[in-house]
């Protein structure tokens, strides 16, 4: 998959809101509530259908300077794939 062309966005049955830098997610289908850590919350916040995975990874590397871009990209992809499996997120290829 070419991550520059992949745009994640929340699954229709998921809603979330960032409070104090941490995202509270409501997964209506699973009747679950999740709280994401700061990096996860930033990924969730940027996953609005207008940022590609590569752009999100770049923003992670910009904000968390201790994380090199290659690591940020690998972590972002792994995290998003997990969220897709849990039906929290959907990926759109353009």
């Amino acid at each position, binding site marked *: 998959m070419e991550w520059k062309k992949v745009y994640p966005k929340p699954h229709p049955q998921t809603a979330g*809101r960032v409070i104090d830098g941490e995202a509270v997610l409501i997964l209506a289908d699973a*009747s*679950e*509530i999740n*709280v994401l850590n700061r990096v996860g919350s930033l990924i969730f916040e940027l996953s609005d259908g207008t940022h590609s995975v590569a752009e999100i990874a770049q923003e992670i590397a910009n904000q968390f300077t201790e994380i090199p871009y290659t690591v940020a990209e690998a972590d972002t992809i792994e995290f998003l794939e997990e969220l897709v499996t849990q039906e929290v997120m959907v990926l759109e290829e353009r």
Partner: protein
Amino acid sequence: MTTKVNHPYQVSLNIADFPVMLVTRDEEMYQRLMRRYADFLDQAVEPLVTIDLQITPGAQFIAPRPGPLVIESSYRPEGLTYRSYLEAGSVDWQTGRGQLEMHPEAGVENFLRVVYAWLCLQDGGLLLHAAGLIRHGEGYVFFGPSGAGKTTTTRLSADTAEILSDDLVILRCAGGECTLYGVPFKGDLSDAPRANQRARLKSIYRLQQDQEHYLEPIPMTTAVAELVASSPFVVRDLTLSYQLIEVCRQIAQAVPVQMMHFKKDKEFWKVIDGMEKGLPKAAPANGRAGN
């Protein structure tokens, strides 16, 4: 040929300052409702919603199957639909009119719970799956999943506090302060009185059964998530999910929300009272850090 038209009976409820009128042509049901909701009747206020109750012999909307109670509801800004095994209804928020068609053996209570859950959330309040009580004039809320100890906490507090409910309460916040309201809906402690009382909300405790009594701070986001997870009906429908998270955030910002580790005895009040007086607490014997 003449048709006998019974006089409609009106039952005017006022729960947490949300007035709802039930209208029935069945005198027996009217008497039952008047007895059931005696402490929550209020003729003086204009209802936000008027619900016509229609009894239909043989009515069935969902076939009963073994498993948990099924209640289906769907919220839209213009209205609400509801159905369970023996009753189905709807509310039009614009006109303030609703109806509930029900089997003679069905009750109105589950429908009312759903209606109140949405009425509360629309107005910035919250119907919370929690035990609530008033102690020394102030409101305390204990919440957690089924089995966490809500009913136990209320039973253990019955001699020192006024029990509002062991199952559901309503919270409403304004100006940085929250108010705890009792509701008439039955919980596990079905023989307990349901008091139509309110009090300034002092604190909220997420129950966790343990070998020791101690309080543990909960980070703000976790507190919000825990409150969201304990909001019946509205959490399953994403229509007002942002509003739900925001209401829970306001509550968690206005009132301390803490994890209360407790074993099943009254001593937990000493920990709460000690906390309020600012007394130092001994760390639990197992070495975990208390607050």
